[in-house]
């Protein structure tokens, strides 16, 4: 079922959320993705992906007060337990697929 597989951007966005922890709102997520993957993306794409993940229950979000510094309320995103479970399964699947292929990659270099 297509709903059960994680898309690439979905996968990356969830990892970015985990890295950013309490600081995971849209702008830093976009920067994190760009910095870590070295590829450009757009705020619109990231935002859509986050909302889709939320619909699937892999991510949850809440509007948060910006704290004592002031400024706008921000939507913060967190990976849910189900999301963690899904990431773990994905990593296992990738690890299984990579198993024994290290040589190919080395050779390809």
């Amino acid at each position: 079922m297509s709903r059960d597989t994680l898309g690439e951007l979905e996968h990356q966005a969830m990892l970015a959320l985990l890295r950013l922890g309490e600081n995971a709102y849209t702008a830093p997520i976009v920067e994190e993705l760009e910095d870590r993957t070295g590829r450009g993306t757009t705020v619109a794409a990231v935002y859509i992906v986050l909302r889709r993940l939320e619909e699937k229950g892999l991510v949850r979000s809440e509007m948060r007060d910006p704290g004592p510094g002031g400024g706008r309320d921000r939507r913060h995103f967190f990976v849910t337990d189900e999301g963690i479970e899904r990431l773990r399964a994905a990593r296992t699947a990738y690890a299984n697929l990579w198993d024994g292929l290290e040589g190919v990659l080395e050779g390809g270099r």
Partner: protein
Amino acid sequence: MRSAGDRLPRDDAGTRGGGGAGRPDPPEPPAAWRWALRRILSGSEGEYLVGELDLLFRRRVRRQGEAAARRWYRREVRACAVRLPLERTRRGLDTIREGGMGLGRSIRQATRRLARTPGFALVAATTFAIGIGATTVILGLADQALLRPLPYPEAERLVTVANGWSFSRANLEAFEERMTSLTAVGGARDAMGMTLESAGGEPSRVVVAEVTVGYLKALAVEPLAGRRFIDDEGRPGAGAVAMVAAGFARERFGSPAAALGREVTLDARNYTVVGVLPVSFDLPSEANQIWVPVEMDPDDAGTHWGSGAYSLVGRLAPGAEPAAVAREMAELGESLRRANPLWTPGEGYLAGAEIAPLAEVRSRYVRTPILILLGAVALLLLVVCANVANLLLSQGVARSRDHAVRIALGAGRSRMVVDQMIEVMVLALLGVGGGLALAWAGLEFLRPHLPAELPGRSLVGVDLRVLGLSAGVATLAALVAGALPALRLAGRAPGSLIASGGDRTRSGGRSRRRTTRLLVSGQLAAAVVLVVSAGLLGRSLVALRGVDPGFEAEERVTLRIDLAPGADPGAEGRALELAGLAAELRAAVGGAPVALASTLPFGGEVEAMATFIEGVTPDPNSLPVVAHHRVDPAWFEVMGIDLLQGRGFDAGDRIGSELVVVVDEAFVDRFLPEGDALGRIVRYPWRGAPDMRIVGVVEAVREGSLEGETEPTFFAALPQMQPWHPDHVFVVAPSVFGDAATTAALGRAARSFDDRVALSRELPYPALLGTSYASARIVAILMALVAAATLILGAVGVYGVASFWVRERVRDIGVRIALGAEPAKIRRQVFRQGIMLALPGGLLGLALAIPAARVLDGFLFSVSALDPLTLVAAPVLLSAAAMAAVYLPARRATRVDPVEVLKGE
């Protein structure tokens, strides 16, 4: 809420550590693009994203310089413009798809739940069916008569004269030539009977309308085949042409197209069929089968200015108002008056015409009764809704545990409310099925009894429009019926549902019972209103039927005989012919007396003329208009009309003898109250009209209506052939062999006398009288049916409450019976419950019935809107119904077996 346009130095400071203080204003994103972004995104979510982009823009300025940041910003805006609307669409489609799948599932589940409680489903669906059926019947009538636009192009521009005026041919010609507020105008003369010859068959009588060429043009009616009349066909010397009704064309020629170019022979003259009019065309009257053009001679206009017989239809010029037509008509009347000095119409000629939309005038007699009936079915529908709501409430109690469990398992409350509404919708849908079947049968039954005043009565039925209307009514009813139970469901905690499921006497039950009682009281109140209304209309109808028309209609049949058209036998010849015909007819009914007359009271045709009465007024301009019938000597005897003074007619009253008339009591009372009527002279109004001497006075005879004052009438002796000899006669004979057999025997006799005669209107005389109160009868019958349905539903409501009361108290009753309580006492207690329900409902109903009855006032004949008998009888009937409804639960209560009940604990 702050706008996303606020500057955000702290955002920057918080994440990247750079201080904003002391710096110049940071650069802004390109203003136009930012503005565009705001238009694309909306709501708080949009504000949020705009803010995030602002933030990212500033960081990018710092990292890559302003130009690159601007490029980046523009790209982001473009991405938002494309991706976010697409995403919104996807979400919308997903919701719809899920909703659709969910609806299908919910309907299946609702059907399954209903199938588990078939008794409940059947009662609820039947209740809906009764309400929807009754509403559909009335809507079917209302749609034809009031709602549906006339079947002509731009029908809202069609106007006619509302105050019953008719016009002469010269008037019509002047209108056609000179009026600018009408683009087309024409006149029609209604319902002339003509004898239609059939090759090889018996001649018959058809109803023919004479119309001007402009009449059909104004209506812009599209012929089914062929064409409308063209201008020359209204001129003298043009070939005789006719248009025929679709039904007539099919019956006689096989199909509308086959009728074109064929001939019909009317009163011995041949007409070529040039067009066929559609079934929906019913002007000037529904009875018309053939239309022929009026002969209009422009050179001859001055000779026929006088009183006219043509009703008018006009098509308003674009932007013109009916009032403009009336104004123009009055001005035209004035100029016509000046231009025709030979003829002297009075001052204000043609002024005061009430011009009104044709659709409105057509339905004026039925508008109020239909609105009253619509009001009645609306009440019935409310009762239906209350009943179904009650059923759902008690069903809800039965399902409380089920609901509580579902809520505990996480079913959303809104989900359950939706489920409940879907269940009601399914019930209503079943009700629509049953209701439409009822409505179809009802309308089929009603159609032949519908009064002639109802426009489109032959077309009344269940069609797509009516179907749509009744589906709308059903949806509305389902929403109303489902609302209350759904609200209760929405407003209760699962705990209370479990509690009320477990112990029905707790507080949740109390509020439900209050609601139920309120609903039942409301139903009973509505029932009283409708029963009172039906009672008043019924009593009025009985009173109307009880009015003495002044003659005996029972046990008598009538028949119209149109004598052979063609060669005119002259007065002497016609007198001989009628004498011969009368002898033949008498023989046909075994020698019983048979009467001939030119017109009949209640026969639908009236001969009325300005009449000179000796000793009343000599002024020729103010002669009273008096109706008269020309009758033969047997008439008074056959009709059972008593002679009060002088003599009736006898064999001596024939051509050449002194002309004689008999007047009725109303005539004497109005014109000659001194009591010296006998011997006075009566004359027709034209110059040289012969004297006719009053030789007798009979009891007052009503002319065409059982209501109001009896209008004066006189009778002339038919055999004297004054003022002219008739081309047809009505026959009245005692119904010696039963109605049908007698008219058949009379018809055979007439044909054997002369096979060229045309027979029509073979009717029992009471049926003729009946047409005068057909409207009153149909309204009374429909109101009675609606009232009966409401009463039955009200009783069902009482039954439901009483049996629920008993069921709730089975344990108490069982214990009391075990302790030796009298069954009679328990029964009394149940009956008390019934009375407690009926009393407030009945009182409220009476209070509401009084203003409701006032609405009926205009329709009541010799019954007051506050008729005490009806006002007392309705609550008595209601109480009887309530008691009957309580009887079964009461009996059940006394038969409770204490052992069983206690064992069940």
